[in-house]
C-alpha cells in the first residue's frame, strides 16, 4: 500500500512528513465527521430556518343552509390582483441601472471615478505620464456609490417599478390607487415571499378588463379568494352571526408559522358556536426562499380540509315572511319573532329586529359604523329572540290558569265580578292594579280573552305562590333553552327553593306576568309549543345536521329532532279549556288577538302587554292549526301599542304565509317530505 510503504521507508525525514500528512488529514477527517455526522441535525435545522417559510392556508369555510338546502351563508369568489415581486427582479435591476443611478449621478457629479483599465494600458499611461506626456482623458467614467446610497437607490427603483405597474393597472380598471411607500417597503422587507396585493374585490367589469388587457403581464396575477357572503343579507342575521378577520390565529397550533393568510373566525351566532366545524382544518404551505427572501418554489405540506356544512332547522321562506311581517308592525320596530314546530321543537324562524347585514363584517367595519350598530336604543347587534328577556305580561296568564285548574280553585263557568281594577290592602298595600278589561262579570273564557287582571290575580292568589312557581318550573322558565350556548339568557323566574324576600304583591304581579319575571321570546315559544302539543316541552332545536356527518364535540344537545326536555304533566281537560280560550281570543269578535285570525287556519293565541319602567313590552303568543297544532308563533315588540294591536297582526301575517307555503309545497311532491 502506498501509505504504509512510505511509513516504512528508511528515510526518517520522509517518514516524518508522511506522518505529518496523515495527521493533518486525520484532523480534517475528524472535523468533517463532527460537522457532517455528529452535528448534521443542527445544521439541517439551520438550513430549514433560513430556507423555508411556512404559510398557513385557511380552509374553505363551510356553508350554512336552511332545512330545505337554501343557502344562508356561503363563499363567493372574490377577484384580487396580486403582484409577484420575484418576477419583477429583472425590472428592478433595469430601472436601477438605467434610470435611478444615472439620475442620481447627474445630481452628484463628484462621484464619477475613472474606469478600470487593463494592466498593459495602465502601464503605458504610467510610462507616458512619467516621461512628461499629457495624460490622456479617461475614456469612460463610472460612479462609485457608497453602500447606503446604493441600498436607498435600489429601494427607490423597486418602488418606481411597482408603483408604475400599480398605477397602470388601477387606472385602466378605473379605480386609480397610489401605492403607499411605507406599506410597500414593509411588505418588501417582511414578507416579500408572498405576493403584494394591489386591488381587491374586482367588479365583473374590472375582471373582464383585466383579463383582456393584462393577462400574461409579467408578475401580475388575478387570483380568486373565497369570501364569506350571506345571500339573504339581514335575514336571520342574529342567528347566523358574523365573522371577522382573525390575524392572530390560535396560538396552540403546533407549527410556528412565519405568515398567516387571512383567516376568519365566527364572533356571534352559529358562526361562532360552530366555528371549529365550519372553519375546517387549515393547510400548511411551505415556501422555499432564496438568500434575499424571494420565493423560489412552494409546496403544500398539509392540505386544507374544508369546513363542514351546517344545516339549520330554519325555513328560509318562513323566516323571511316573519321578518317582513315584523318590519310592518310599526316604524323602526324593535322586537322578535320565533316560529317553532310544536311537534318537535324545531325552530323554523327566529327574527330579531332591527337586524344587521353580516356581509359588511369580513371586510371590517369602521368604528363609526360599529357605533351605529350598537346604538343603545336600537342595538342592531342584539339578538332579542334569545338574548333579550322581557316581562311576559298576560301571556303568562296561561300558566296561572293551569295552576288554578290543577288546584281546583277555579271552574271555567264560575262567574267573577271585575270592578275594573284589583285592590286589596293585604296584598298590594295602597297600590291598585288596573284590570285592562272593562268592569263586569267574567267567566274563565271571557276573562282570558279580555285579559282581565283582576280575575287572574284573584284566582292566582288563591292557588298560591308555591303552585304558581311549581307550574312555571315545569316549563323550565328561568332556565336557558340551550338553543345556542352563550347566545341566550335564562330570563328571571322565582326559585321555589328560595322565595325569601317575596311579597304577596310580587305574587299578584306574577299572576299577570309582571314584576320579577322575564321571558325570552325563545322561552315563550317553547312554552307555547308545549301548551299546543299536549304538554311536551322540547329542547328547541336550531341545528339540523352537520354535513358530512361526523361526531363533534359541542356543548349543544345532540341534533336529534324532538328532543324532549320535560313532560309538563298537563291534564288534557285543562288543556282543552285553555285551547278553547286561546282560540276564542283570536276568533271571537271582541277577543284581544282578533287581528291574528286567518281564513282556513284556526289559530289560538294570547296577547300580552307588560308595563315596564321605560316602555311597555307587547306580546302575542299563539299556535295553529287548532285541530292538529304544528306551529307556534311568538311575537314580541318593544314599545308596541298593545299585544293585540301590534303583535297579533304580525302573527296573522306569518300564519297566512305558512298556509300559502304549505299549499304550494304540497303541490310539488319533492318537498312534501320536508313538511313533516
Amino acid at each position: 500500500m502506498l501509505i504504509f510503504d512510505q511509513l516504512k521507508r528508511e528515510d526518517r525525514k520522509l517518514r516524518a512528513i508522511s506522518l505529518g500528512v496523515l495527521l493533518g488529514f486525520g484532523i480534517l477527517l475528524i472535523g468533517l465527521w463532527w460537522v457532517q455526522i455528529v452535528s448534521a441535525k443542527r445544521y439541517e435545522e439551520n438550513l430549514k430556518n433560513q430556507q423555508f417559510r411556512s404559510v398557513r392556508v385557511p380552509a374553505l369555510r363551510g356553508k350554512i343552509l336552511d332545512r330545505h338546502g337554501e343557502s344562508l351563508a356561503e363563499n363567493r369568489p372574490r377577484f384580487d390582483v396580486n403582484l409577484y415581486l420575484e418576477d419583477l427582479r429583472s425590472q428592478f435591476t433595469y430601472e436601477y441601472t438605467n434610470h435611478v443611478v444615472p439620475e442620481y449621478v447627474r445630481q452628484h457629479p463628484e462621484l464619477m471615478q475613472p474606469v478600470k483599465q487593463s494592466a498593459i494600458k495602465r502601464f503605458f499611461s504610467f510610462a507616458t505620464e512619467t516621461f512628461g506626456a499629457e495624460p490622456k482623458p479617461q475614456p469612460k467614467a463610472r460612479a462609485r456609490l457608497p453602500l447606503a446610497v446604493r441600498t436607498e437607490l435600489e429601494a427607490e427603483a423597486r418602488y418606481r417599478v411597482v408603483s408604475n405597474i400599480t398605477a397602470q393597472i388601477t387606472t385602466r380598471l378605473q379605480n386609480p390607487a397610489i401605492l403607499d411607500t411605507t406599506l410597500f417597503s414593509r411588505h418588501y422587507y417582511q414578507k416579500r415571499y408572498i405576493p403584494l396585493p394591489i386591488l381587491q374585490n374586482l367588479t365583473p367589469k374590472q375582471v373582464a378588463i383585466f383579463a383582456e388587457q393584462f393577462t400574461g403581464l409579467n408578475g401580475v396575477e388575478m387570483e380568486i379568494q373565497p369570501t364569506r357572503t350571506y345571500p339573504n343579507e339581514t335575514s336571520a342575521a342574529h342567528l347566523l352571526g358574523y365573522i371577522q378577520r382573525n390575524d392572530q390565529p390560535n396560538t396552540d397550533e403546533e407549527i410556528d408559522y412565519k405568515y398567516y393568510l387571512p383567516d376568519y373566525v365566527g364572533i356571534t351566532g352559529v358562526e361562532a358556536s360552530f366555528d371549529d366545524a365550519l372553519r375546517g382544518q387549515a393547510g400548511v404551505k411551505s415556501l422555499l426562499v432564496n438568500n434575499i427572501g424571494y420565493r423560489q418554489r412552494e409546496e403544500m405540506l398539509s392540505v386544507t380540509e374544508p369546513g363542514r356544512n351546517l344545516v339549520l332547522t330554519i325555513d328560509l321562506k318562513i323566516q323571511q315572511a316573519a321578518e317582513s311581517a315584523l318590519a310592518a308592525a310599526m316604524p323602526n320596530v324593535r322586537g322578535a319573532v320565533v316560529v317553532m314546530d310544536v311537534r318537535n321543537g324545531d325552530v323554523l324562524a327566529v327574527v330579531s329586529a332591527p337586524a344587521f347585514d353580516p356581509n359588511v363584517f369580513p371586510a371590517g367595519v369602521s368604528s363609526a359604523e360599529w357605533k351605529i350598530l350598537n346604538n343603545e336604543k336600537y342595538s342592531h347587534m342584539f339578538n332579542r329572540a334569545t338574548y333579550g328577556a322581557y316581562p311576559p305580561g298576560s301571556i303568562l296568564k296561561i300558566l296561572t290558569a293551569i295552576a288554578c285548574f290543577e288546584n281546583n280553585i277555579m271552574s271555567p263557568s264560575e262567574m267573577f265580578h271585575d270592578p275594573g281594577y284589583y285592590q286589596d290592602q293585604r296584598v298590594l298595600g295602597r297600590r291598585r292594579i288596573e284590570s285592562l278589561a272593562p268592569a263586569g262579570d267574567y267567566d274563565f273564557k271571557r276573562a282570558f280573552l279580555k285579559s282581565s287582571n283582576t280575575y287572574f290575580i284573584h284566582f292566582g292568589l288563591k292557588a298560591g305562590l308555591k303552585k304558581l312557581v311549581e307550574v312555571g318550573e315545569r316549563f323550565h322558565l328561568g332556565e336557558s333553552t340551550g338553543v345556542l350556548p352563550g347566545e341566550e339568557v335564562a330570563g328571571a323566574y322565582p326559585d321555589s327553593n328560595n322565595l325569601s324576600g317575596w311579597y304577596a304583591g310580587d305574587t299578584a304581579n306574577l299572576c299577570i306576568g309582571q314584576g320579577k319575571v322575564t321571558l325570552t321570546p325563545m322561552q315563550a315559544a317553547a312554552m307555547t309549543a308545549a301548551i299546543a302539543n299536549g304538554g311536551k316541552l322540547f329542547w328547541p332545536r336550531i341545528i339540523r345536521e352537520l354535513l358530512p356527518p361526523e361526531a363533534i364535540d359541542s356543548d349543544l344537545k345532540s341534533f336529534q329532532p324532538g328532543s324532549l326536555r320535560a313532560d309538563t304533566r298537563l291534564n288534557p281537560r285543562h288543556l282543552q279549556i285553555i285551547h278553547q280560550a286561546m282560540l276564542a281570543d283570536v276568533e271571537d269578535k271582541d277577543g284581544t288577538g282578533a287581528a291574528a285570525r286567518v281564513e282556513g287556519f284556526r289559530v289560538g293565541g294570547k296577547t300580552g302587554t307588560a308595563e315596564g319602567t321605560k316602555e311597555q313590552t307587547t306580546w302575542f303568543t299563539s299556535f295553529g292549526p287548532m285541530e292538529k297544532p304544528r306551529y307556534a308563533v311568538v311575537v314580541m315588540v318593544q314599545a308596541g301599542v298593545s299585544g293585540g294591536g301590534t303583535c297579533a297582526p304580525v302573527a296573522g301575517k306569518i300564519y297566512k304565509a305558512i298556509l300559502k307555503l304549505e299549499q304550494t309545497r304540497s303541490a310539488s311532491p319533492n318537498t312534501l317530505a320536508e313538511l313533516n
Partner: protein
Amino acid sequence: MYETNLNERKSFFDYPLLLAVLGLIGIGIAFIYSASFANESVRELPLFKQLYVKQMVWYSIGFGMAVVLCIFDYRTLARWSLVGYWISILLLIAVMLFGTERFGAKRWILMGPFQLQPSEFAKIAFILMMANFLSRPKEELRRGKIFFTALGMIALPFVLILKEPDLGSALVFFPVGLLMMFVAGVPLSYLFKFVGGGGVLVALILVEVLFVPIDSKFQLIRLENYQRHRLLTYFGKDLAPPNATPAERKQAQILQKNKSYNVDQALISVGSGGLTGKGWREGTQYSLGFLPRAVAHNDFIFSVIAEEKGFVGSVMVLTLYTIVLFSGIKIASQARDRLGKILAVGVVALLFSHIFINIGMNIRLMPVTGIPLPLLSYGGSSVLCSLIAIGILQNVHMYRRAY
C-alpha cells in the same frame, strides 16, 4: 526485488498519481457545473462563457503545460529557476502597481480577458528556486549565511504578497520553505529556533489582537483592520471594544455577522450534507444564494461537494488527495538526486498546505483566507499552478533513480 524494479522502470508515468489527479479534475468539472448552473444568469450564458467550460479549458492548458514540463529534465528546469523566481517577483511588484482591486485586495493583473494571480505562480517559481538553492552539498547548509539566504528567499515573496494583502497565500511560503529545508538537511537546531521564534511572534500577535484594546499604547504590531477582524471572528471574540457604546456594539455585531457569514453558510452547507448528501445538483445552499455565488465555485467549492455528496463525498475527495500526496512522497523517496527529492517535497508541502487550509476553512478549523483548493477550485491561475506542480512531480518520477 529485481523484477519489481524492472516494473518500476517500465512505468513512464506514476499511474496512481495520474488517476487520482484525473479523478479530482472530473470532480472539479462536475461540481463547478453544479455550483454555477444554479445561477440563472450564468445558465443563459453561451457555452464558451460557462464556468465549467472555462475550467475545462484551464485543465487542458494546465495538462499541456505539465506534459511540456516533463519533456525537460527537472535539472534543466532548476537551472532556469533563478530567472523564474525573479520574473515572479517582478510580477508581484507589477500587481502592486497595476493590479486590479477586488474585495479590497490587489491580487490580480488584468491581461486582456484573463486575470492573472501572480502569487500562485510565485509559489511554483519559489519551490524550483528553493530546491535548486538547497540541493548544494549538505555541508554548506550548515552555514548560517546559507540558512539566512534561504529565509530571505522566503521573505521576499512573503512580504510582497502580504502587501496585496493576502495573508493566507503569504504564510504558505513558510511551511513549504521550512519543509524543503528540513528534507534538504538544514540543521534541525536552526529550524527549531526559527519555528520557535516564529511561534512566539504569532502568539504575541494573537495575544495583542485578542486581549489588548486597539487604541492602547502597547500596540506593537499594526495589523490591517480586516485581518484583526478575521482573527477576532475566528476566535469567536467580540469585535467591539469593551468600552463600546450600545450603538457601536450593535454595529460591531452586524459587522461580525457579515464577517462570519461565508463560513457560517459554508458550515451549514457541509453539515446539512449529512452522510450521503443531497445529490448532485440538488444542493440548495448555493442555488438559493445563501452560500454567496461569488465564492461557491472557487474558495468554497468543497462545501458544495460536501453538501451534495455528504461525508462520503468528503472522504472520497480526501482519499484522492491522500493518493496524490503519498505518490508525491514516494516520488521524493525515489528521486535520483537531492534536487528531485527536495523539489517533490516542496510540491507535496504546497499541495498539503492548500488542502488543509481550504478544507479546514470550510469547517471552521482554519480562519478564512483566499487559499484555493488545488485542482477543484475554479480559477485559471490556481488550476495551472496545481497542474504544473503535478507535472513537476511526474518529471521527478520520470527521471528517477534507475535501480
